[in-house]
């Protein structure tokens, strides 16, 4: 393990020494073993170089064909990670909720995957973040509609589903001491009605065109 003092070198390491130019000559060594060790070292150093580029958040995808090849390798090996978890700040996560109104007018609120355990819920909650990756209203509407569709599938008798995407506005510690309470900021809201019900409403006397 790391941090140990210098111990006598085993034979294959001594054999490797002269080829690396690290240790005084006088030792032979199998060329194949040396080549393999040197190749292994070169690959390891190159890989750690890619890991370092990832940690430094260097964008290789925007580069030429070599950079793009390295980017592919980095993604496959996980060397592209920048390890910026909860950094430089801890942001509020978007919270998606669905207000389901049934035929009697009763309203209940639920999440995208009610009853999911924590590990599954993390993944489902992460999907909601897709909303923040685009400003395109068409894409946002499609995402919201597809999720509302899942809720309608769970509640076939629902009259409408209101999708709300909110962020928790958590006061700082000082603000909290001064009495400010956490609140919710609405990022997006859309109401969905089953097409059959919408059509019926339009065809009814006095219905909207």
């Amino acid at each position, binding site marked *: 393990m790391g941090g140990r003092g210098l111990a006598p070198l085993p034979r294959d390491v001594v054999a490797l020494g002269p080829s690396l130019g*690290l240790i005084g000559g006088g030792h032979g060594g199998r060329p194949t073993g040396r080549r393999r060790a040197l190749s292994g070292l070169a690959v390891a150093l190159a890989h750690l170089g890619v890991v370092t580029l990832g940690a430094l958040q260097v964008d290789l995808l925007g580069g030429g064909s070599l950079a793009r090849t390295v980017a592919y390798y980095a993604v496959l090996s996980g060397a592209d990670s920048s390890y910026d978890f909860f950094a430089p700040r801890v942001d509020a996560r978007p919270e998606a909720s669905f207000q389901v109104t049934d035929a009697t007018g009763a309203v209940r609120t639920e999440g995208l995957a009610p009853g999911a355990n924590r590990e599954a819920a993390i993944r489902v909650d992460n999907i909601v973040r897709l909303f923040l*990756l685009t400003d395109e209203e068409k894409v946002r509407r499609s995402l919201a509609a597809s999720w509302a569709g899942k809720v309608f599938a769970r509640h076939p008798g629902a009259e409408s589903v209101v999708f709300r995407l909110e962020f*928790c506005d*958590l006061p700082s510690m000082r603000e909290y001491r001064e009495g400010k309470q956490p609140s919710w900021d609405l990022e997006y809201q859309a109401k969905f009605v089953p097409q059959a019900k919408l059509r019926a409403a339009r065809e009814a006397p006095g219905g909207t065109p």
Partner: protein
Amino acid sequence: MSTEAISPPRESAPRQGTSLLARALRAATCFAFAPASAAPLAVLRIGLASVLLVQAALVYPALHEIYSQSGILQGSLGDAFLQLDLPRIGWLIALLAPLGLPEATIITATGVVYVLSLAALLAGWRTRLAAGLCWFTHLMLMVTVDITNYGADIFANIFLFYLIWVPSGAALSLDRRRRRASAEPTTAARLGLRVIQIHLCIAYLASGLHKAAGEQWWNGEAIWRSLMLPGYRQLDFSWLAYHPWIAMILGWTVLLIEIGYPFLIWPRLTRRLWVAATVALHVGIAVFMSLGIFGAIMSVLTVAAFAVSAEPGRRSLVA
């Protein structure tokens, strides 16, 4: 050759410089290539496979909701955000379309292959093949719904990839029992372990420096928000607002553990303390933010890489 054989001569300054260089280079060679036991790599293999099996059991009930095109991310909506064309379940569906296999069957089959290869990896049976299958199926699942991934998946991907190349089946494995792998210390085990150790050092240093760039980790707000924001909050920590110094000290401690990791995990004097501090950090994240799988994976990585002895002939596993 012994250590004494390369001790610096005292005749002249140039000779002394050369000798010091030789000594340093010899230490570097020993650092990277001195044959090592595969025990740390085996502990990494067993620990990682165990945690990922638990994770797979937890995700299984939502498997189709998460990965199916008729699930939470319907149709090709997810594809709109993909940056690279990488293997994903959609590829398999297209590839197997002539066989008329439904998507649900392909997703289930991918999950089954993943779990079986994890079990093989855990037992050390055909270890490299098992690691390769694990890595590939895990990658396919990651790429299919890229947005769902978080730290646990990223580190699993990294270390499953390493397990393909390092001789983790040379200890505590069925391959070893069946003599398909040699128990002899190898330079490959040492080099593999060094790469893993250095990768962890880069990861913790980067994580610590990214955090240190923000004001929240210095004034304690990051701790306050981690404990109080919905999505992370497990207990009521509102009392922390009246003792902000506690949050501030905890924030500094996180920075110290992460930025100090690459410097204080190596010396024997501080290694055990830093392993314990790092594990405590991840246990804290697991308990207070309910990120149990992430905490378990990160603890396994540090324990395997720095707390398990790689020295040949050592009876104790503890470094």
